[in-house]
């Protein structure tokens, strides 16, 4: 068999093409370099600027951009600037997923900061898992998730309730009225609350869910009157929080005897309902705007200077702010050629920093965050007064309500 020059050329070309397609690390290596091309590190910022949840997500967008601007002004990350690519997913889970794909596949962002609602996080999850990219989720949420492609910097139920519920029982009594908006977050929080109450010998007089965006609470208030609970445990979200507080106040109920204990009422909602409707009620969260620490003073001052003196910071915008710094710390640990989403994920494990709320750390096992639970009471001036600060930071346990399950580095593990 003779080999002509032509066949040899053809075969070599075919081999070359095969090598290109068949040895993918060559291409991935090139793609890696693209993540830090030209002294720029591209990240996505995916918070709704329009639609129903824009009310809160706008402030998350602002806190994230503030942190990015600060990092860039201080010289960037090892000389590279962070370039935020802002998309508006319009409060719609389908749009979230579409924009996430655009940021990850089209823009080649090395990480995306985004989402307020669980629905939108669940919608983008497949994108990040399939592309093996990294999503930074700042919101307190219901737990029960164990993705290797999400860094969770908000509180999970055990971090909001372990201190809070026993404190409420001790201070006000054992009869709880559980009210929430009708979706997964309030149901999971109440699930955990019921478990805690069972241990404490508490009693749930009612568990009730109102439609999202609901604003007529007079029948709920009648029920509260007739069941006379010691505590109204509220996981109502969005503008419903405002309506519930205002109607509670207008109906002449007394927060000293029957306070609302909320996991969702932040400075943002208090500003909208007015201090007089918020005064006397309680919230549990890792961060409040009045928290005294040099880091928080710096954060609040910078936020107001950048976005307006009437603006407030709250427990989700604080997480947006510090998670951007954690991203920076993780990237700093990596060589430019190693800059990939999975490497950032591995680098951020165990990373800690002094956030406005105190020292926070990413738990290597489950990629959630060690936080500092606090209990605060709203005042008529629209701010909170912190009554209880946890003595120690609290480990995130995303499956706290499900004793057999735990989130580990290998993923969700079920103990039988």
């Amino acid at each position, binding site marked *: 068999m003779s080999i002509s020059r032509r066949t040899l050329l053809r075969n070599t070309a075919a081999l070359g093409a095969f090598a290109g397609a068949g040895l993918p690390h060559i291409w991935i290596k090139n793609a890696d370099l693209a993540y830090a091309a030209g002294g720029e590190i591209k990240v996505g910022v995916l918070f709704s*600027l*329009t*639609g*129903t949840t*824009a*009310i809160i997500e*706008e*402030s998350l967008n602002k806190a994230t951009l503030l942190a990015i601007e600060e990092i860039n002004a201080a010289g960037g990350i090892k000389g590279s600037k962070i370039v935020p690519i802002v998309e508006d997913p319009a409060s719609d889970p389908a749009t979230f997923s579409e924009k996430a794909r655009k940021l990850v596949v089209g823009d080649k962002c090395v990480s995306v900061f985004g989402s307020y609602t669980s629905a939108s996080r669940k919608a983008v999850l497949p994108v990040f898992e399939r592309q093996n990219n990294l999503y930074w989720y700042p919101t307190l949420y219901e737990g029960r998730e164990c993705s290797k492609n999400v860094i969770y910097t908000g509180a999970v139920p055990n971090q909001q309730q372990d201190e809070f519920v026993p404190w409420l029982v001790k201070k006000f009594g054992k009869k709880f009225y559980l009210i929430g908006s*009708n979706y997964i977050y309030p149901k999971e929080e109440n699930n955990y609350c019921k478990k805690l109450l069972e241990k404490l010998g508490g009693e749930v007089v009612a568990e*009730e*869910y*109102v*439609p999202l*965006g*609901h*604003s*007529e609470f*007079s*029948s*709920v208030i*009648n*029920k509260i*009157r*007739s069941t006379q609970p010691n505590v109204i445990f509220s996981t109502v979200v969005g*503008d419903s929080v*405002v*309506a519930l507080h*205002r*109607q509670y*106040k*207008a*109906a*002449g109920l007394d927060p000293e005897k029957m306070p609302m204990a909320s996991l969702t009422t932040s400075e*943002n*909602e208090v*500003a*909208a*309902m*007015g201090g*007089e409707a918020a005064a006397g009620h309680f919230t549990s969260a890792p961060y409040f705007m009045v928290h005294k620490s040099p880091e928080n003073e710096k954060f609040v001052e910078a936020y107001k200077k950048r976005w307006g003196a009437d603006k407030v910071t709250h427990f989700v915008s604080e997480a947006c702010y510090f998670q951007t710094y954690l991203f920076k710390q993780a990237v700093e640990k990596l060589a430019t050629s190693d800059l990939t989403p999975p490497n950032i994920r591995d680098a951020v494990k165990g990373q800690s920093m002094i956030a406005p709320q105190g020292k926070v750390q990413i738990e290597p096992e489950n990629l959630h965050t060690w936080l500092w639970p606090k209990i605060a009471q709203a005042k008529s001036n629209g701010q909170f007064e912190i009554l209880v600060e946890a003595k120690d930071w609290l480990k995130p346990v995303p499956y706290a309500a499900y004793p057999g399950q735990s989130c580990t580095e290998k993923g969700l593990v079920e103990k039988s």
Partner: protein
Amino acid sequence: MDQFIEQIVTGLSIGSILLLVALGLSIIYGSMGIINLAHGEFVMLGAYAAWVFHTYLGLGLLASLVPIFLVVAAFGWVIERYVLSLLNNRPLDTILATWGVGIMLQQAVRLMVGSELRYVQLPPALADSMNVFGIPISSYRVFLFVVSIALFGATWMLMNRTTVGMKLRAIIQDRSVAASFGINAKRVYALTFAYGAGLAGLAGALVSPLKSVSPDMGTGYVVDAFMVVVLGGVQSLAGTVASAFILGELSGGIAFLQNDTVAKTIVLLAIVVLIRFRPEGLFTARVRA
């Protein structure tokens, strides 16, 4: 027994808010046959107007009611004059046009004042609660009840005891014949639409201290308003009142016995079933065929 009375009073209060929100729509839909999907945005504009008057001019809610009515009515007039009347008020075209106007208003507010929730103060004099039949109820809710009945009364008088109302009723019966009698239908339509829009604006301002103010708050109200008007029967003002209170009692009662999610579902289902068997609604004005 106490609970029963309490629940009846609550239902009246919910009903009065429904009536407030639906009254403007009832005029526009009932009289002009225009399905005004921007109704919710007029409600929203009213709420924002209350916020603007309070924040920038220091006016209390009660003092700003009349200016709010005028401002939103002026908006309505402009939209009728420069959008709807150019479409000759054709029902299908106006659905699309009003929907578009609604979206534009929403986005305009979002762009101009931002999308965060806004705060409208409860008038301090009405901030307490009072006893009605031994039942503690918010003074402001009692006030809303009185205002909604008064506005209904005013609207009824306007329709049935004034020249403008008479002209409008003539146009409803037959536009061309009315025009041949020298009635300027265009002008009457513009005024009616403005009046309906003004009422929606008032409703928005009045409910804002109990609820919340945001650019998309109108979406919920427009659904409520259509439910009331459709159930009550188009062209029947009294029907609107009756249906507002029926819906108020029904949703309040079911919410008490079950919860608000169930109440919403059952009420919607009941309306759908009822419309199947009485497409004209519960109450219909007698119109010559």
